[in-house]
């Protein structure tokens, strides 16, 4: 792989976190991909917004609760999480229903900053258009 070959990777998460494996296996790609020093963004739309809902508890269904991994994304330098405003609203959710996900900005005295950005559908379309590699899960 040639040096300086940086592309904009966008991972689109469209499915609910539990009930299928797509969310977990998407997260696995994001974590591995972080090691490749690409420009990484995550998008949460449709039922994908449930992936970062606060207070997830999978004890009742006996499956792995990987929700806390999203909060560690900042440690992997994955700092751009875009959540579609309309998808939240359509599901009766608001930003306050999402878990806080932050990163430490080393260029700003390690200030803790929010990774989640709410964007409207038109803005989400622009983000998708401006990406080089789009992986939808």
């Amino acid at each position, binding site marked *: *792989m040639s040096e300086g*070959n940086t*592309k904009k*990777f966008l991972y689109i998460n469209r499915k609910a976190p539990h009930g299928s*494996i*797509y969310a977990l*296996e998407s997260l*696995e*790609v994001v974590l*591995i*991909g972080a*090691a*490749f020093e*690409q420009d990484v963004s995550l998008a949460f739309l449709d039922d994908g917004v449930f992936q970062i809902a606060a207070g997830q508890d999978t004890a009742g269904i006996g499956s792995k609760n990987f929700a806390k991994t999203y909060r560690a994304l900042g440690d992997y330098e994955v700092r751009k999480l875009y959540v579609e405003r309309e998808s939240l609203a359509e599901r009766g959710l608001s930003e306050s229903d999402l878990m806080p996900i932050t990163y430490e900005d080393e260029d700003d005295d390690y200030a803790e900053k929010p990774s989640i950005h709410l964007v409207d559908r038109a803005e989400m379309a622009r983000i998708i258009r401006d990406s*080089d*590699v*789009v*992986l*939808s*899960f």
Partner: protein
Amino acid sequence: MRFGIVVNEGPYTHQASDTAYHFTKAVLAGGHEVFRVFFYHDGVNNGTRYTVPPQDDRNLQKLWSELAEQHGIDLVVCIAAAQRRGILDESEAKRHGKSGDNIAPGFRISGLGQLIEAGIEADRLVVFGD
């Protein structure tokens, strides 16, 4: 143009694998290069040689294996997704104490880094799945 192909669904339950196969053939027929086909999620099920569909139906595993043989295409099955679903090569089977392997000819098991690399190296990464 150099293409990367991602297959995220298993054969028969979903059209994605058939479409990806036809797309890959069309890419090659068009004189383009296929950098890699990466199988993820249930897509890894395309890579088991124990697939035995009825004789009057297509055998997707065989079609992929033949395409790999004819054109030297790199067919990569994600190791984590494959292990979850019981797709093992000889060394993985040995490592996990299983009595046999089932990876199909032309397929190899490797890591998710191969998917990211396909995204970086290909001019277009085309994903087939739900």
